[in-house]
């Protein structure tokens, strides 16, 4: 959680865009635009390649499995290429910035704990992970006192437990602590 630890520090993940020349600390939409278009192109290629593998022609019983997705892949690729070329030529989108650095820092302060949270669900179960996530946000960003934090951080998972496991009988992922308690 390095990004959120020290607000003065530069955020770890989204610093892929270079600082624009002489333009404050706004980040241009160019790199994100190109990145997403390239990603879509890769996905399009994956779709087309696999459609060719399963066959895009006709079999005895009708069109093969790749028949429809093949054209979907082609269209996706065409649209992505169009966007990519547009971005590289600098036309289409106005030169509106993608976001400020301070904004990206805030997004990272949300995204990084979110990644840890999802990873933690697999390890310690959803209840403990949720309590930790709520506590982290309330202490770190809300500057709440410990009693209020504890009440909400334990209360929300408890309510979730009662509603899902008890009332609707839907089991949620659990970890070693719940097993110790006998669930």
């Amino acid at each position: 959680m390095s990004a959120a630890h020290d607000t003065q520090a530069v955020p770890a993940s989204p610093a892929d865009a270079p600082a624009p020349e002489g333009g404050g600390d706004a980040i241009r939409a160019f790199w994100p635009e190109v990145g997403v278009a390239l990603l879509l192109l890769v996905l399009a290629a994956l779709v087309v390649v696999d459609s060719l593998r399963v066959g895009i022609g006709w079999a005895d019983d009708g069109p093969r499995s790749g028949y429809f997705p093949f054209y979907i892949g082609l269209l996706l690729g065409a649209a992505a290429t169009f966007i990519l070329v547009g971005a590289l030529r600098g036309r289409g989108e106005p030169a509106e910035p993608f976001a400020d650095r301070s904004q990206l820092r805030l997004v990272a302060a949300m995204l990084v704990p979110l990644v840890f949270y999802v990873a933690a669900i697999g390890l310690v179960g959803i209840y403990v992970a949720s309590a930790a996530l709520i506590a982290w946000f309330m202490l770190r960003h809300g500057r709440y006192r410990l009693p209020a934090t504890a009440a909400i951080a334990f209360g929300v998972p408890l309510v979730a437990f009662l509603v899902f496991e008890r009332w609707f009988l839907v089991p949620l992922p659990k970890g070693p602590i719940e097993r110790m308690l006998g669930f």
Partner: protein
Amino acid sequence: MQELNDLAGGFAVALTLPNIGFMVIGIVLGVLIGVLPGLGGANGVAILLPLTFSMSPTSAIIMLSCIYWGALFGGAITSILFNIPGEPWSVATTFDGHPMAQQGRAAQALTAAFTSSFVGALFAVLLITFTAPLLAKFALKFGPAEFFAVQLLTFCSFVGMSKEPPAKTLAAMMLGFALAAVGMDSVTGTLRMTYGQTELLKGFDFLIAVIGLFGIGEILLTMEEGLSFKGKSARISTKVVLQTWRELLTHWKLFIRSTAIGCWMGITPGGATPASFMSYGMARRMAKDPSSFGKGRIEGVVAPETAAHAAGTSALLPMLTLGIPGSPTAAVLLGGLLIWGLQPGPMLFIEQKDFVWGLIASMYLGNIVGLIVVLTTVPWWAAILRIPFSVIAPVIIVICAIGAYTVHSSMFDVVMMLVFGVVGYLFKKLRYPLAPLVLALVLGDMAESSFRQSMLLSQGSLGIFWANPLVGTLTTLALVMLVWPLIGKLRAGLGGPRRGGGGGGAVLAAPTAKTATDEGR
């Protein structure tokens, strides 16, 4: 008057005590979802869908559709009091709604918004009541080619009517189709695009996509704005309600116009958001003093709210009769129908009469219940918005994670929710529309199978899409919609210089210009 008999039967189904209870629960949950950032109609319904698997389908759809009405009502509260549109379709409501609140007329603005929502929805439900059975009967004659043509029209309309760049609309849509194709091919049983990953065998569930794109993505966007909720508080007294209603009666023409726009945009998949902008633009242009709009005119609240609700409600008409949803939330409801084992489409009106008419009756009742609930409970919802984001945000993330997990009891889905969340954030920032992605993901399999069936019938000739006047008209209309942005560009290129500098109102220039082209259609 077969419809009235059926409707009476529907009321008998909907008016049982448990179902009225589900209605109230649904409305309250819906308003809550509409008020909170990061939770909206589509992902709210998606998260709660797994909880309804054990309920009877009729009760379940009554509750879920009431969540939808509630979310439509709830969006107006945040727009007017906090200048934060809780839902995209209430953006236009902020233009005049928030200035009214700043002038101390919050109660009037809220009453006008809720009443307009109610009126818009009511007319849309009347439309559904009387046209749905006819449309369903008509659609019974549809073959695979006709169904594919209708689906083509749906998707091409997105390209033609979207505010976003056409290439990005197309890219988002094709991404949705591509994701829908992953996993086992339902016709031949072949595995596609799994690249050996066992997790991908069952494909991508659109519920996960909806929770990630709209929930996590929205939280990331909200976080970026720094978030400080500074709002006006409001209480609504009976006196103000009655006064406002009297004033609203004089705007009956505006109601009719806005309802018509809303119903049209809801049935064609324009959806509630463009409907609200279009209706606002129309009201502004047809007013005697357009310059007073944006400074707290009650008409500026009535027009977008009426249209948004009319569109949101009438989006269920194609969903029920053709199996083609008009909005992302309608798509999630459609997904629910499939999970409960009901095949949406014309046969629904024959085989599941109780269900369909129970749902339609619940639309009438749900909107009445909703109007009463929101008018009486506004102060509480305003109070909820004062809870700081540092508490709300992690709680909403927890709710989304639980919702994503419970769909298939799978950890992989929770990871995918996170991925879709980042995609949702990037797409919103880069102006890729999310609705076509979701609709393509939902309808992908259906569109593919109707396309393949058509191809089987015609032995691979595309001529089948022009084989008779009906399918030919639909297909041609779809292609016209597809190239519509090009036509618009050509016309703008020819007419632009001649018109000269007549563009007043910089903020609203875009939606108003959009209105002009849409009208010409």
